[in-house]
């Protein structure tokens, strides 16, 4: 069989044995710059162990007078009747449905554009390429205006529907399908009597798996991090994703007054909300890196 297990780019990576000697200068420079990337994250982790007064009175990169991580976490999950867990679930729902849906739609469309010749093909392709350049946020206000005119705002669909559209995903899958799905393999399946959709479901999907993972991860991060779209679309706090919820808490904490929300709660909530993605980055890093590289190498 000609089914190759993983992305082509991996097999193209040359083995380099010649550069085994390491340079202390480069090592020091790179690791010093890493301090910049890590300090805010370390600060956040330490801040989550402090109560609100230690947060302002003790040194940021060392622990405070007491260890309050668990008190803080229980505060995060009990504030406003435990709405934080609702926000986390909403984020998971929006991210997973958008990512899976966008990857499925983009895969089918990109595959068809790469593997079939049909009337209207060029037009469809160019419209999608043009759409790649239209930024999501320039689209957000128009989408809000349309959705509010049909009373679709403040529903889950207001967030999920725009998340299903990934023109860049279609473009990526078209390039990927053109490279990795062999025409002769499709022809052989046709001679064996397989229908076109069956060929797509069995041969196409298997060969496209690395590309599908790429689009899936891209869209997952994009939706997980999305703030602008849910901010304008949603009014009910029970529908918020965690980004909008945290921003709301932060606003309430910094506007002071009644001091309903403590800064320590906002920060601990931030830490809790980034843990899932950070952990998945550390464990699935091979997927992340080969996935993101597909865009750069082939784009």
């Amino acid at each position: 069989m000609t089914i190759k297990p993983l992305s082509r780019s991996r097999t193209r990576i040359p083995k380099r044995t010649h550069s085994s000697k390491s340079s202390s200068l480069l090592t020091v420079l790179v690791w010093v710059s890493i301090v910049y990337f890590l300090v805010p994250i370390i600060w956040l982790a330490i801040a989550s162990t402090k109560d609100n007064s230690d947060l302002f009175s003790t040194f940021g990169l060392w622990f405070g007078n007491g260890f309050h991580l668990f008190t803080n976490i229980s505060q995060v999950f009990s504030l406003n009747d435990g709405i934080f867990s609702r926000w986390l679930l909403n984020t998971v729902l929006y991210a997973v449905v958008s990512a899976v849906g966008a990857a499925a739609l983009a895969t089918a469309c990109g595959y068809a554009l790469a593997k079939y010749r049909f009337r209207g093909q060029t037009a469809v392709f160019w419209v999608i390429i043009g759409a790649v350049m239209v930024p999501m946020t320039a689209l957000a206000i128009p989408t809000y205006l349309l959705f509010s005119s049909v009373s679709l705002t403040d529903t889950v669909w207001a967030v999920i529907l725009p998340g299903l559209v990934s023109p860049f995903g279609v473009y990526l899958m078209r390039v990927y399908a053109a490279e990795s799905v062999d025409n002769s393999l499709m022809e052989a399946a046709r001679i064996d009597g397989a229908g076109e959709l069956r060929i797509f479901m069995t041969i196409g999907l298997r060969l496209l798996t690395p590309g599908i993972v790429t689009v899936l991860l891209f869209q997952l991060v994009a939706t997980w991090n999305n703030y602008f779209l849910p901010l304008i679309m949603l009014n009910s706090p029970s529908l918020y994703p965690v980004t909008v919820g945290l921003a709301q808490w932060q606003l309430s904490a910094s506007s002071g007054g009644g001091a309903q929300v403590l800064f320590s709660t906002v920060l601990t909530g931030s830490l809790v909300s980034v843990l899932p993605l950070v952990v998945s980055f550390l464990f699935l890093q091979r997927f992340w890196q080969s996935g993101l590289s597909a865009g750069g190498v082939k784009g």
Partner: protein
Amino acid sequence: MTRPTAARRSTIDRTQTRAAWILILPFLIVFLLAFIVPLGYAAYLSGFTSQLVGGEVFSGLTNYTRALQDPQFYAGLSRVALFLFVQVPIMLIAALALALALDTGRVRASKAARLLIFLPYAIPSVVATLMWGYLYGNDFGLITQLFELIGLPGPDLLDKSNIVGSTMNIVCWEFIGYNMIILYAALRVIPTELYEAAEIDGANQFRIAWSIKIPAIRQALILTVIFSIIGSFQLFNEPNLLYNIAPNSVGTDFSPNLYAYNIAFKNQDVNYAAAIAFLLGIVIVIISIVVQSVVNRRERNS
């Protein structure tokens, strides 16, 4: 003999065309609903003006001419320009330097290094801005604490004169790693033969990077430039969140997007907001096309 074959061909064409449309249609439907129709509707809305007397009145391009004369719109655009000419180069040069350093294979624990540089990409911009906002804080922030440790007064990084730089720093922190990964991946697929000879001849790593590696990853570099340009025009999350802690420094027109948001949701002027969103989209598409054609022309010439 030819006729049956031709007939067979056309049935094949028909089944394949049908299969193609079945596969394309789901995307196309959602694309229409959540992309084309909203744009069309916004274009339609942008042609009206709401008046105190008489409600919505068709006004042609009035909203666009208003935007083109609106100093607040230009204030946002000029900050985007600052990002394009200051923040984007800093970010991409840092990303390129790190990618080249890691690609030499001479950095110890380079796999861990790569992962840690990339890690901020996993942090939502909302959380990133929240964190940096606290680090910047003048009375208790970490940066002020560090300054005081060496006996200096802490700078007010949320002050009006510093807020642009502070925002640039947050965007750099978020995206250097992402760009580094794209460039690094492109560097890894350069065939080693291209510079093995140079290495044997004793060319140093800077020379190899400058004359062999950087030209070889031109495509990936262009991609990061275009993504960064689009990103700069989209600037919203960071200023919107910094506004909560420093409203006077950020203002309502920090970026065109923030301005459009404020017009739509604070001033309730959806028609004008639609025009600004539309204008912004057009500007971005034009700039992307210009960048690409300049690059293509230069490639053809060289």
